């Protein structure tokens, strides 16, 4: 798979990472070589092999339907860049 400049720009937008234009070339090359390396895996014959989604086998353990936590507004806000009266405060997200 060949990457181009537009894909890099789109990826940085999707990841919300501000990428200076002068670095786009280097990132493109790095990412391309990672993809090329992964590409080699296609040589392996995987016929009849189920995709491995988790290295842990088994089925999901369940929790009981009980309220066991919460009520820790102050602890949450201690890590918030900005908060008012227990709300997280972020830059306006609608125009």
């Amino acid at each position, binding site marked *: 798979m060949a990457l181009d400049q537009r894909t890099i720009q*789109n990826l940085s*937008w*999707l990841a*919300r990472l501000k990428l200076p234009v002068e670095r786009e070339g280097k990132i493109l090359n790095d990412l391309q070589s990672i993809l090329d390396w992964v590409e080699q895996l296609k040589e392996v014959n995987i016929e009849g092999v189920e995709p491995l*989604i*988790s290295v*842990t086998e*088994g*089925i*999901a*353990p*369940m*929790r*009981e*339907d*009980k*309220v*066991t*936590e*919460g*009520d*820790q*507004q102050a602890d*949450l*806000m201690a*890590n918030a860049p*900005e908060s*008012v*009266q*227990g*709300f*997280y*405060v*972020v*830059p*306006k*997200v*609608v*125009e």
Partner: protein
Amino acid sequence: MYTIKGKTTDWELVIGLEVHCEILSNAKVFSGASAVFGGEQNTHVSFIDAGFPGMLPKVNEKCIEQCVKTGLGLNARINKYSRFDRKNYFYADLPQGYQISQLYHPIVGEGFIEVTTSEGTRKIGVERLHLEQDAGKSIHDMSPTKTFIDLNRAGVGLMEIVSKPDMHSPEEAGEYLRQLRAIVRALGTCDGNMDEGSMRCDVNVSVRPVGETGFRTRTETKNVNSVRFVMHAIEVEANRQVEIYENGGTIKQETRLYDSDNGETRPMRGKENANDYRYFPDPDLLPVVLTDEYIENIRKNLPELPEAKKARYISELGLTPYDASVLTADREIAAYFETAAKGQDAKKVANWVMGDLFAYLNKECLPIAKSPVSAENLGALVGLIGNNTISGKIAKDVFQFMIETGKDPATIVEEKGLKQNTDTGAIEKIVDEVMAANPEQVAEIKAGKDKLKGWLVGQIMKASHGKANPALANQILNKKLGG
């Protein structure tokens, strides 16, 4: 068939609904924080819900059970193997940066809902039901430059129920939604409250000339929050599309917003950049595997569903299909009706519930749970009419006293001395008196002016203070007039 008349051709609608139902559970789907609506901001939040690094989700067994229950209620296939995927997008009220959902292996597969409209009964296909987590709430009006975030709702379990593009009129879509709400409410898997947002609906609409097969480009209208709005949004969106086609235009596949104030749909801003959710299996969560025994156990304990209840009301209680669907649309109304109808004439009870009781509750904006007249007492009132203790007319007055005092009807009848007079002798005396007081009218009736008879009966009832048994009074009067 519902169509939109165009200049050159008639157009039919193709409608699909995606309905999000908040799951009724104590705790959230992947954390032990409370899933109950309300609470002070950010007090129903665990570190998992707030997206702290290193926190691992663990599935709430109740949410799985609720999905299976709902799936069975939708006559759907339950998938014994399901698993979770991440839907990646950035939004301030989604702290993880992804929503845990089920794209590839949903917990419930195809099913259907039976929907009755003026055009008859049809099965509307359900494509799937999958389990996912709700996002938090963004509040935009507390500051001109900032958005405030409350994560109490973040991580509450959601069932997304996707219909097939099977509906063809606003009425049909409205009924599908009503029926779906009745089902989840009957099952106790979602409270179905569209005002509070515990049930939300996205509407997919496209149009095509009648006779054309295949689908044209559809639009998705988001978060339409009442049955009435869903029906209206479909109507205006379909008309908008027809107008564009007829003027030679094309429809863009896009997400739109319904504006109930202006009665229109418009494109959502800032969504030009096509969504790219980069779904992938969530490595934090193992698959959910269910056994036949588990599913059968839930099936055995399912409560009676609205469709079955409706059929029973019609066949066993002799109600009309209309009355039966009104009374079964809401679980609490059905329960009230059944309690009231126990040992009474069910049809008469239905009339009282849908007539006087609903009129009063609607006027006062009360839910049936807050009715001042208990179901037992309403049943007893119908009983008193049935055994001729009071007339239907007096019953209206007794009902009024019941609303005011909450007392049982027998006590009110006793206290107010409203017992109906079935003493033939006493009624005869009143009839004689009334006839003597109105000789001209009696003469006219005898001369053939039958219409006046009703008036005379009215006078008799009045003279008896409404307590004479009307049938008896009529009978005696007829005898005297004939003789």
